[in-house]
């Protein structure tokens, strides 16, 4: 095992897939000459040339749609959208086209497309650049939505996304790019077949008192919460959703059946958010096992402010999640450390 950043895991895996398969090309704004706003595509233009590393004009609808069209003819484009906020410009091509073409034409043509894009607040980027709107895509049958939280997942899940024949929205996170973690030694080998299974969640830390569910950056925050509460003798089981569509309900429902309580932490807004679907699934799948109402810790329902104290206050934190967990356990008479 070696320890690398989430950024490097993405970059090296992307490169490996381009070496492996001539049909893989990358398309996006500032990905070539500029080497990527977040340097995920660093070095790719030099290595593969402009045929396979296509810098685009600022025209998200145009180039995302072009990637869909290229995928229809059998290429395997990996599109970079600078942030998920800009996917709104391309949403017609993602939802009305990429997600529909396979089914709407009776299964004649698949769309092997990956759209990589980071979400994430907390960077003082203000209201239009700090949103977590993966819900929009997670809502849509025909799309697959993946959300890796560690470098190892980033690698195995990106490989899975590129080799899948369906359109995949691959959610990254600005707050994770510099995070580090262990990856297999051969993670960057083109012949590597370490491929994640789309549609599977994972219990990333076992515990017995309560289940804490998150994805992307919040899955890593959940682990921090579990570590902190362990010091107070509270045993938290962490579930990393990893795949937002399809959603692996059984994994977190089984966990809740074991612990009897659940808190969901999410970077998006609470009302109608991803957590609402998780909570609804828990009540349906583990109603008799619940000792307390399911709590959600989510972003405050405001357009994200720029000023740091306001931004920090708006986002879930280790502290706020810990509080919600303690209150939940307290409500059912479980010991609170």
């Amino acid at each position, binding site marked *: 095992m070696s320890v690398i950043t989430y950024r490097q895991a993405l970059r090296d895996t992307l490169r490996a897939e381009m070496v492996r398969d001539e049909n893989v090309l990358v398309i996006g704004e500032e990905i070539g000459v500029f080497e990527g706003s977040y340097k995920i595509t660093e070095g790719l233009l030099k290595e593969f040339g402009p045929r396979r590393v296509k810098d685009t004009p600022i025209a998200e609808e145009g180039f995302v749609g072009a990637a869909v069209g290229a995928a229809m003819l059998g290429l395997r484009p990996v599109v970079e959208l600078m942030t998920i906020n800009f996917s709104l410009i391309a949403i017609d091509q993602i939802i009305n086209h990429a997600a529909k073409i*396979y089914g709407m034409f009776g299964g004649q043509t698949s769309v092997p497309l990956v759209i990589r894009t980071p979400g994430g607040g907390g960077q003082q980027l203000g209201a239009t650049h700090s949103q977590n709107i993966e819900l929009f895509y997670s809502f849509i049958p025909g799309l697959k939505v993946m959300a890796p939280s560690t470098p190892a997942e980033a690698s195995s899940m990106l490989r899975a996304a590129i080799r899948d024949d*369906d359109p995949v929205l691959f959610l990254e996170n600005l707050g994770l790019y510099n995070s580090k973690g262990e990856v297999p030694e051969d993670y960057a080998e083109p012949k590597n077949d370490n491929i994640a299974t789309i549609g599977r969640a994972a219990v990333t830390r076992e515990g017995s008192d309560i289940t804490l569910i998150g994805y992307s950056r919040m899955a890593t925050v959940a682990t921090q919460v579990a570590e902190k509460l362990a010091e107070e003798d509270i045993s938290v089981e962490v579930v990393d959703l990893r795949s937002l569509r399809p959603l692996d309900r059984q994994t977190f429902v089984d966990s809740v059946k074991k612990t009897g309580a659940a808190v969901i932490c999410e970077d998006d807004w609470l009302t109608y958010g991803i957590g609402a679907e998780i909570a609804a699934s828990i009540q349906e799948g583990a109603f008799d096992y619940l000792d307390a109402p399911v709590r959600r810790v989510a972003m405050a329902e405001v357009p994200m402010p720029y000023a740091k104290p306001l931004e920090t206050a708006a986002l879930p934190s280790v502290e706020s999640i810990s509080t919600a967990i303690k209150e939940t356990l307290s409500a059912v008479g479980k010991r609170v450390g």
Partner: protein
Amino acid sequence: MADTAKPKGGTARASASRRRNRKDTGIGNEKPETLLDYYRQMLFIRRFEERTGQAYTQARIGGYCHLNLGEEATVVGLMTALQERDYLFTNYRDHGYAIGKGMDPKRVMAELYGRVDGVSKGWGGSMHMYDTETRMLGGYGIVGGQLPLATGAALAVTYRGGDEVVMCQMGDGTTNIGAWHESLNIAKLWNLPVVFVVINNFTGMGTTVEMSSAEPELYKRGAAFRIEGERVDGRDVLAVRDTASRLVERAREEQTPFLLEAWSYRQKGHSVVDPAKYRTDEQRELARADENDPITIFDAQLTKAGVLTDDLRDEIAASVKAEVAEAADFAENSPKPDVSTLFDYTYATPVPNESRRMPADPVFAE
């Protein structure tokens, strides 16, 4: 830029009595069998669409239903300009194009009926004809949606060093949407062999070109992207064929996009259910005038040239009628999709935890 066959004064102001401003298409140099083939194809689309309209009013066909009535010469001229290996993307007014690109009319009608033998197996309907074999890659219901896709298809062609051309058909209203600007720009920047074809029937639903386009001379609107544009009389099958062929072959040769505007009159409303009450008397007259009807025009031309005789006309009419009836019978007798197939086409790569829940099923089936 060539400005051929300009409709004088645009939509409403064009005179019903104006002679067709078309250069000699050299009908004398054409093989009679070629001309008769075009005539038959145009008549076939006319009768097919009339039958479609009838089936729609009888509730055999559901959803939205947009017909190519009045556009037959454009359809046949454009489709003749493409090679079999070339790709086609269209908007939702796609029945004629689907047939013209080579789809079996029986399967097009079956799609309209929502049956398993439909080209899209009953999943698409009127707006979503699709067939990988004949390379008609849809039929799209969102205005402008097909432009980025067509551009990307051309990218895939050049990526592989192929020599196919992509034709991207759209209506006049499409020239104002963002996807138009983004796609034309990208197509030119990346040197892609796409021929963008604007079908100008002067009306986007009920909104005239003058009401919606600051530059109503639509073929000029490629200028911002240095894309050469031409305009052609879309009532004239030979003019459309010749102009489109030239641009398609130039796109193939020069590896660059072109823009073609073909104007003609939409004979009826936007869709079958639209009585087009917004039309002025003059507009209505223009849309219905014999001299704007591509089939009446071509019939007269061929008759005058001695290519079409009364006997031949009757023979063609009878064979077209029989074939359209056969398509409708085929559609009528094709099975409706079984409900058990509802989840067959959500994903191309099977995936765990894909929901196959029917509306009232519990999320967790025991």
